[in-house]
């Protein structure tokens, strides 16, 4: 069980690294939103699953599972709210210059 947890920790760190790279280097609001949202969801999910694998069957695991379910529901919804706000503000999506 410990090796699976180590694999999930490394996976979470890798996803967070790609997400922050996209947040710094992407050219537009929508591209930054896409990279940071997908990578943050998967990285936090991986780290929480690693903590659940490490702690076994206990009340700790139950609390972490509640946090995981709430996070899976709310983080894409928050991303959608931010994207709709950016669209209503009139921000034009970025296109590669010809």
């Amino acid at each position, binding site marked *: 069980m*410990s090796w699976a*947890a*180590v694999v999930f*920790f*490394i996976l*979470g*760190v890798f996803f*967070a*690294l790609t*997400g*922050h790279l996209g*947040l*710094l280097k992407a050219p537009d*609001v929508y591209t*930054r*939103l896409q990279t*940071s*949202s997908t990578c*943050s*969801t998967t*990285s*936090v999910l991986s*780290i*929480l699953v690693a*903590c659940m694998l*490490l*702690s076994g069957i206990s*009340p*700790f695991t139950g*609390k*972490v599972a*509640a*946090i995981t379910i*709430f*996070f899976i529901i*709310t*983080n894409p*919804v*928050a*991303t959608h*709210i*931010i994207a*709709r*706000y*950016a669209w*209503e*503000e009139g*921000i034009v999506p970025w296109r590669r210059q010809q």
Partner: protein
Amino acid sequence: MEFSLPVIIDWTIAFLLGSCIVGIIRIIIGPTTADRLTALNLVGSQVIALLVVTAFRAGSPVYLDVAMVYSVFGFLGVLAITRYLSKRSNSK
């Protein structure tokens, strides 16, 4: 360099703290408000992961309640900021 479990957990905590600094850089230099909200959402999710890993490392489930409340208020904060700043809700 050994790859035991406490070393991995310590490096994960250090990486999450450093990634919060990267998000705060984007909050400072972001050109528009949506950029700042994106980076704020990302920093909030990293802090949730940081709190859960800290709770496992310290062995105390008190941090998990903090993580739950932080998750709820992060979502409500994004919702309130966008609703307050959007043009449609101001015109009604």
